[in-house]
């Protein structure tokens, strides 16, 4: 990703807004953007979802491959999560090998899903020691207006819950729905104008400081955290966003679970 120069004016403007408890697009501190989650939208994928949060749009597609289990875990399949932000998604994203930003994106989303244990890797075994399913979750950004992390995480879990194991095509039995037992949800907070806000848009990302990503599970357990970018935060600030994340993840989980 090419790094845009941050105009001082934008930072000053965001500070002023923040001092008046306002945001650049009129939202309140903890308010998310308009959210639309759709599934089954990619004809060639075994599971798919499209998430739109304001002007941020992402796709997620699930594909399956047959792998040989690792010798020390003969009964387990695998989960691979790959995030790609290609130049289509915004003028600052460039072609070429994955940027550090894209690598971080993919790894943070991967950890949230993986560590929640929502996919039981033992259930992916076909023949112990010989064949197992590898689930591949590909996250794809269409339009980046900020907070790709949450959009990817949401599309990812929605696509997994939408996925069918293509056993017939691989001639190893009948198709069945991929068992996904939990619904990990990520919420991201950016420090903008000196305070943290939920679901930053791209201008807030551009003129802001550090961001914190929190993934919580069905029982409010913490599955993944990540602080990104330059910035210092206090335990009190963290406590405040963690409290918000507990509420917000519940709301989002309802949307995914009802699909």
């Amino acid at each position, binding site marked *: 990703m090419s790094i845009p120069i941050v105009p001082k004016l934008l930072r000053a403007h965001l500070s002023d807004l923040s001092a008046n408890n306002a945001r650049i697009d009129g939202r309140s501190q903890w308010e998310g953007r308009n959210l639309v989650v759709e599934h089954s939208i*990619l004809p*060639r994928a075994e599971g798919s979802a499209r998430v739109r949060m304001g002007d941020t749009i992402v796709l997620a597609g699930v594909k399956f491959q047959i792998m040989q289990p690792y010798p020390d875990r003969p009964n387990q399949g695998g989960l691979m999560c790959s995030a790609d932000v290609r130049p289509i998604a915004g003028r600052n994203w460039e072609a070429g090998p994955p940027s550090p930003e894209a690598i971080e994106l993919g790894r943070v989303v991967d950890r949230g899903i993986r560590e929640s244990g929502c996919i039981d890797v033992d259930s992916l075994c076909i023949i112990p020691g010989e064949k197992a399913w590898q689930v591949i979750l590909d996250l794809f950004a269409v339009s*980046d207006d900020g907070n790709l992390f949450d959009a990817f995480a949401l599309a990812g879990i929605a696509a997994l819950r939408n996925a069918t194991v293509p056993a017939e095509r691989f001639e190893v039995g009948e198709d069945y729905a991929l068992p996904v037992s939990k619904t990990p949800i990520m919420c991201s907070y950016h420090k903008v104008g000196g305070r943290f806000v939920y679901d930053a848009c791209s201008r807030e990302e551009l003129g802001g400081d550090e961001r914190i990503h929190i993934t919580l599970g069905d029982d409010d357990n913490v599955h993944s955290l990540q602080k990104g970018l330059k910035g210092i935060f206090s335990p009190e600030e963290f406590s405040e966003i963690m409290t918000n994340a507990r509420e917000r993840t519940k709301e989002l989980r309802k949307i995914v679970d009802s699909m």
Partner: protein
Amino acid sequence: MGGYGDVQMIDENGLRMDGRSPGDIREVTIETGVIPVADGSCRMTWGTNEAIVAVYGPMEAHPRKIQRQDRAVLDVAYNMAPFSTTDRIRPGFNRRSREISKVTKDALESVVMLELYPRSKIRVTIEIVSAEAGTRCVGLTAASVALADAGIPMTDLVVSVASGKINDVVVCDLNKEEDNYGEADLPMGILPNSGELVFLQMDGDLSQEEFSQAWEYNMEAAQVVHGMMVEALKGGGSQ
């Protein structure tokens, strides 16, 4: 081309397995303004193909060594998303995509009025998120719509269509099953107002007569699709 086996793809009435006549194309939808952060964009479905195209620019060309004093540079990339095909595609370098990017760029450069924007860059990104058969045609056609949506002046739109051959019969716009058994493929990029060409590829085996028939089908189909493009550009418009 595949072309082996003796699967029957044309019935006794001369109709194809999906009910089309030899000269018919699949269902097509076109939508503009689908990427809010882009300067122009287009989503096009064609059968179960889906291409999404973003146009950014004209913007500053950097590094400076790529700048041209007398015109804009056009940066065109065609890519297939990992989940766009039955077997997942590994991201990364790919000779096929490089070649399609190049010929698509060659076609678009023939119509975009690059000389209006010296020293700048226009970036066209074509992403195939669902692939059936004929993705290069869908991508090129959608790209010309996205350029128009971005307000970039062009001498004409480009309509791209392919015809081919199955069971020794020339047909227009092969779908996936037909493509698996296809004996030839002739994609063309047509300027609908003049009937001239900016893109042409072909592989397989076509006699000179078959070749003429395929050419004719493409020319006719281009007029049909052109009507839909114009319609979409009237109705849609970028946000």
